[in-house]
């Protein structure tokens, strides 16, 4: 697995064996060069692959920057590991770190131009407050603070029904 890409010298996970006039010829490619050389298809670059590349390329700058979402408590580094966000607020909490990544994953686009919900999506403040309360509720249950959990549950119910 220590092979380097014949084209660019990056780590090479793809190996090609050719037999030409009875001689075995071995070639090694990284994912990108394998595609450009036509020996592999670019099936689907998963977000985790983009993240991995992103970390490799800009690691030093982003390494120091590990924002936390103040609503759900997720760290950007956690998102990097699992490719899934914790709550809608993460899009704003991680905006700076995530934007270049989003741009790459979305072919350069960073602005939605499609469908808009036909009725107003409700009160943004209320939704964020609900997200906070639900995160607190989850923590209260983990901490076995059932008194607090009951109180939070009532608050959620009340706010949800307004």
């Amino acid at each position, binding site marked *: 697995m220590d092979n380097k890409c014949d084209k660019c010298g990056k780590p090479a996970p793809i190996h090609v064996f050719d037999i030409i006039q009875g001689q075995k010829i071995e070639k090694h490619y990284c994912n990108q060069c394998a*595609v450009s050389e*036509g020996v592999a*298809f*670019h*099936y*689907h*670059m*998963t*977000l985790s692959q983009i993240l991995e590349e992103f970390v490799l390329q800009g690691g030093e700058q982003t390494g120091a920057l590990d924002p936390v979402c103040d609503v*759900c*408590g*997720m760290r950007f580094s956690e998102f990097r590991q*699992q*490719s*899934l*966000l*914790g*709550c*809608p607020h993460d*899009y704003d909490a991680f905006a700076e770190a*995530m934007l270049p*990544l*989003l741009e790459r*994953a*979305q*072919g*350069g*686009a*960073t*602005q*939605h*131009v*499609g*469908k*808009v*919900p*036909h*009725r107003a*999506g*409700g009160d943004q403040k*209320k*939704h*964020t407050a*609900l*997200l906070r309360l*639900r*995160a607190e509720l*989850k923590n209260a*249950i*983990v901490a076995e603070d059932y008194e607090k959990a009951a109180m939070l549950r009532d608050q959620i119910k009340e706010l*949800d029904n307004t």
Partner: protein
Amino acid sequence: MTYPFLGDPAQYVGEWLCGTGPMVDVAVSSRVRLARNLAGIPFLSRCSVGQKRELETRLRREIAACPIAEKVFYIDISTSAEVDRRLLVERHLISREHAEAEHPRGVAVSADETVAIMVNEEDHLRIQVLRSGLQLIETAQRIQQVDDALEDRLDFVFHSRYGYLTACPTNVGTGLRVSVMLHLPALKMTGEIEKAFRAARDLQLAVRGLYGEGTEATGDFFQVSNQTTLGKKEEDIIEEFRQQIVPRFVDYERRARDGLLKRQNTALEDKIFRSLALLRSTRMIGSDETMYLLSLVRLGVSIEKIKDVDLRTVNELFLLTQPAHLQRMLKREMDPQTRSAARAEYLRRRLGASSS
């Protein structure tokens, strides 16, 4: 209410297998899906089991109250038998991840199986519409109706810049993924399939196997879908697929078929009729070999070499010879060897064996 096919899967098959619709010789089916999440509730990765259960109960109730289709069945995946979960995957109604997950989750399916809504998959809701052939306009219109009906009752989380927010940023914006299932046996035979995939990559498309991400392209079926969901209108994504992308693949495949017919007609006929003969006389057959042979038979039917079998039968056989379907049809669990014999018997029966 029990979903009908769980009793007898051969009696009811989805509309998408009917073998009609534009370009159906190559474009087997059209699928559109939308990813949606409720406002004020964390994404599933940050929900406790209790919160997931609460969410599932609520969404199940709301979906039941929505005028989505005449008859909608809800299947609780977390309490379903393994064979039923596999059956749903084989029918393309749920993802493999949804079948294998361990938290409270479900799927709502319309009686004709054109609409399926997964609850608590990667996003709170994954809405899908699936149709036979290249019917993207109808498929897209249908999914917007379903989405509007749900939106009447639910607040989906929406961001002024990023659009519909999703658990994974690769789905953000429209949350829309179009995927067309293509049958490309001639391109595979002529070795030109790599060229077709390179073209797909240049168009920023993803190519996957029969059952989605990370699966093998069995039976020469490939799913082509859009990779980006942000920065384009829904209609534009659909139109690009309908007018440019799919016709291009269909054209490549048809040309490859024509080339084979002109230059290697006898060899092609031999492959096709040999496959049909094998399927008509086999006594034991595995599911991979079945897919391989059925693919050649499908090609034979599409180019009108085989005239006594129709496309619908071949399409159905691709589905009904899968492990979970066989076990459900014969109403018992079987080891792979017994399954091979049962599969062979079923194939002989459906294809009209020349001798018993």
